[in-house]
Every structure is written in C-alpha cells, then in structure tokens.
C-alpha cells in the first residue's frame, strides 16, 4: 500500500540516513591516559556545519558506531575540520584510540538540538562542566570567545577527578589568562603539585556571584552532578528556564527511531541532547 505520508519521504535522499560520510583524521593528541583528541576532516572538504552542543555518530565498519559530542566551535578558524575527544571505555572507543593521523573513519550527523545560542546572546553565561562534560562545552566556550561581544559576563567552573584527568589543558591556560572570562577549576583529589582548588564542583558555587535576571547556566556532567548543581543554581535564584543541561543516553540511530535514548515521550537524540531544566523536571527517568 502506498503510504499516505509518502510525500515527506521524497524529500530525504534514500541512501543518506545511515550512510557514514568518509573522513580522515588530520591530528591527534593523547590528552590523558584514557582520553584522546582527534581533529577530523571530511574527504569532500565540506565543513561539518554543526552548532555547539550537537553530536555525531562515529563509524568504524566491522566494529560499529558511537555517539560523541563535538568539542570544536563552528567559528573555528579552519572550518574544514572539527574536533572530538573520546574516552576509552569499551569496544568501539578502544578501536578508535588505535587510529591515528591519516586513518579514515565514517561520520553521520551532526544530530540533535544544540545549546540555545540565540537565547544566551546578550546575557551572562555560567558554564559548569564536570568530567567529560567539558567536551561539548568547549565548543560553546570557544564559540563565545570568538563572538565575545555578543555575550555578557562569562564564568567557567570546571571539575574533574584529579589534575591528571584535566582535558584541554592548553585551552584552560588561555581561559584562565583571559580578562573577560571568570575561570575556576577544582579537582576531587589533588596530587603534590596541585596548587588549585580541591573538592567537588559545588564547592566553587559559593564564590559565584550572578545577576539572576540575566544569567543562563549551562551545565554538562555526570548524572550525579546535576542534582547538586541544579539545587545550588535554584538557590541562587535562577529560574528553571535559565538552567540548560545536556543528557547522555544510549543511542543507536540518532534519528528518533530506535528507542534507546527515549525518556518518556522525549527522544534525547532528536529533541535533545540539550534541554532546559524546566523541560526535564516533570519527566520521570530524566534526572
């Protein structure tokens, strides 16, 4: 039977949906024992065309696919490449870590809804990153730096397990030096050389002074962090709409079909991964 809904189907190239586009790794950097950075370029030279907060599906045939956030800003000088940073945790990510400059891999995407840049514009932005949460947030931070005049005050709070787990340390040095950015970092456990803050990320919150009428908080980190950080932000007077989060769920298709990422009637891959706290608050299983 011809589908009544056929018209829509015509607008999508039939072979596009699940086919990865060929790309090549142009630079890598081992960031920590378990995290590796990759700069990637499409073989056809096209830019990825993403927004901060979106993600892609990396593909290695014979192994499979994995969703990863994009850590470079679309405003980056060389638009023909983009960057990801991946933690080695299992089958796919181990295979990926074996790849190096010149190796090829497949890319699907970008997928999902990025951070609401237009709403952030003209306002103060408080960025709170825990662990791997810095990956998609680096895209946003660098976007803001490249368009600095479009935003008000910018504060970055970073938390990680230990000094050796810090990602993007070169970027961090720069953020720390910049006069128009407030930057603070804390580690759960220090080592002898560490001179900075020690303690979980919420220990940085009392030192943060925000104008609750013009501040958006963008928070990305492990599930456990959300509970505590959200409570602190609400205490500071931010409304539920001014708190923006990004969720991690198991993802297979990235297209709102396979069901893996579903929370209630929401598909994280398509409706998210970024959400306002207001959108998530009433949803069981979300936070």
């Amino acid at each position: 039977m011809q589908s009544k809904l056929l018209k829509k189907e015509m607008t999508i190239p039939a072979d596009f949906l699940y086919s990865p586009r060929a790309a090549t790794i142009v630079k890598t950097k081992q960031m920590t024992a378990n995290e590796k950075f990759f700069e990637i370029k499409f073989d056809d030279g096209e830019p990825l065309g993403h927004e901060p907060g979106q993600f892609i599906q990396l593909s290695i045939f014979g192994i499979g696919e994995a969703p990863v956030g994009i850590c470079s800003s679309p405003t980056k000088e060389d638009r023909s490449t983009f960057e990801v940073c991946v933690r080695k945790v299992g089958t796919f990510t181990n295979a990926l870590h074996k790849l190096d400059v010149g190796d090829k891999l497949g890319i699907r995407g970008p997928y999902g809804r990025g951070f609401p840049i237009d709403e952030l514009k003209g306002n103060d932005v408080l960025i709170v990153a825990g662990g791997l949460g810095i990956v998609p947030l680096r895209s946003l931070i660098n976007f803001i730096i490249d368009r600095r005049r479009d935003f008000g005050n910018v504060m970055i709070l970073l938390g990680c397990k230990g000094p050796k787990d810090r990602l993007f340390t070169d970027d961090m040095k720069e953020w720390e030096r910049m006069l128009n950015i407030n930057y603070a970092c804390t580690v759960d456990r220090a080592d002898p050389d560490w001179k900075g803050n020690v303690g979980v990320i919420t220990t940085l919150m009392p030192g943060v002074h925000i104008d609750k009428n013009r501040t958006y908080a963008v928070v990305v980190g492990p599930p456990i962090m959300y509970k505590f950080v959200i409570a602190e932000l609400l205490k500071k007077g931010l409304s539920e709409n001014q708190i923006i989060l990004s969720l991690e769920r198991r993802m297979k298709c990235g297209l709102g079909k396979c069901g893996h990422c579903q929370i209630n009637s929401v598909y994280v891959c398509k409706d998210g991964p970024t959400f306002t706290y207001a959108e998530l608050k009433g949803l069981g299983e979300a936070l």
Partner: protein
Amino acid sequence: MRYVSLQKDKLPQFVNSLQKKYKVVAPVKKENLFVFATIEDPEEVELDYMPTILPPKKYFLPQHEKLGSFVKDNVAMADTNIDVEPTVLFGAHTCDIEGIECLDIVFHDTPADPYFGRRKKSIIIIGYECMKPCDEYSTCVTMDTLNPRAGYDIMITDIGDKYILYINSPEGMGIIGKNPIFGKVENERDVKTKLLKLREDKVKNFKVQIDADYKELNKIFGTSYNSKTWQDVGKRCVSCGNCTAVCPTCYCFDINDEVKLDMSGGKRERVWDSCQLDEFAMVTGGENFRKERSSRQRHRYYRKFDYSVKKYSKFFCVGCGRCTRTCMADISLIETVNELAKEHKNAK
C-alpha cells in the same frame, strides 16, 4: 466500483491469480498455531485463524534489515539497496493492519526511513475482517480496531454465502481489474448498508474487554506513572523480551555490524531490540536509566497508551493480545490496565 463479490469456493483461484504476479504471504497453520508465511499452494491459506505468532510487521521491518554493505578499508557504504519482491499480504486482520499504520507513522516521521518506505510501497495489503472473537486476550473492541479503518488496499468481508471485497486504493483496483472471477455488485449503497449492519451486529459477539472506555484510557495513564501495579508486574516479569518481539507496534532496534569470515567486508544491519532487556538503556560506566523491571514494564505500557498519544496522537496498542498470549510470566495486558483503571477510579 468500490465493491465486488466473490464466491467462497473461488478464493483459492483468487489467491492463485495473485501468485502469478506477487509473492503471497498469508496465515498458515503451524502445529496448533498460525504464522504468516509465503504460500505455495492456495489451499494452505487459513482465513479462520487466531492472531499469528509474529505479526506481519516482519515484512515491513524485518528482524534483520541490511542498512548497507561495506568493503574492507572503506568507510563509506558500498550499497544500501534492499530487494523487496512485489508482495501481497493476504488475510491480515484489522488489528494487524492498524499495527502497520502505527509503524508507518513512526517511519515516515522526519527523517523518513527509506528502508521501511520501500517495503511499504512494495507490499499490497488485503485484509480479512474478523466476525467472531479470537480469544479472551484480545482487546480490539476497546482499542477500536475490530472494524476496517484505513491502511489496506482491499478488505474481504464474509457476509455468509459469499465474500464482499471493498477496494480502497488504485493498487487494490489494479488487482481486481477485469478478473472474471469477481461478481459485480448491483447496488453499492445496499452493500454498504449491509456491511454497516453486519458490523453493528457482530460487536455483540465480542465482550467488552477492558473496564474502561477508549476515551478514558489515556486519562488513566495520566495518573498511573507511580502506580504500585508496576511493582507487581515488575516482580513477575523475567525480561525475556517476547512481548515486544510479538507486538505489531514495537519497533525498537539495535544496529550491528556483521563481518564476513574472510574479513573482506560485511554488512551493517538493524536488528529488533527490546526495551525489556536489562542493557537497553544502559550507558558506559554502568549508569542504567531503567534498571528496574518495573520501570521497563511501565515504559512498554506507556509507549502504547501515553507517549504515543503525546507524540503521534494515537494509541500504539492495537489490541491483538499477543503480548499476553506469549508471556511466560502470565502478565496480562487486560489485567494490568484494569488494575490501573480501578486505581484511577478510586483516586477520583
């Protein structure tokens, strides 16, 4: 011409004429159950049948669907073609047709899925209307799927001495064409009235299955998220995933790569998955967003009676009863929903 008639003894001849141009899949007997299978001999077709073990979704969303093939050292897919023989799905019940409609909505939602789309286009659906209840597990009366609605090319109705065929699409018309085995219907209005009357009467043979009205169902789920019923159901469920495999509207899938033995290449395919399995929503690091069986069972029910209504304005339970029939823990959809309905009423 929207209606034609067919003498009952001519049915095999009809099927045979279809076989000349199409692969014909129809309900056939398998031990004491029924399955949809490709038929060789028209006599195999069993129109008087209980819902089949698997619904016809297997023809639209096969358990394994090749998304594309790849060759060694290449990172783009070599081909994404799928072969779909022109097929006739013969004798599908109205509940199963409604199930296909649900899948159709999902897979045509942007971005539309070309694999499903190609299959849907290649399969002609000839329905067969139920005149009597199949067993105590189906809920087609409550779910309003007992009578033909939409989504088929031809509907066959047994009016006693013969069949009436209703033609619902150009493809259906193409099949009936000028085939002399069909009889002309003199007065289409009379036939229409007769069918309406027949449907009014047949409902009396079906008992009301869920203690709630179609319109009330969604409201019940609106207040049932934290019901203790989920704990009861969760305690009994063994997470085998049978209920989702046999459900005509369950479509969750996994994506896997299969490498050829000589390592020269392979294929990427999507494979039916089940939200009832423990690892379905688990991410690395062990975080599992539906760790409890109760939350996974709730998820299954909510996908049928609540989430789908929010997202697609439609119930995704078509009342076929398969999930109850197949469950080895005796979890019954009717009992579960009745329990929720009772709680909902008491809370009011």
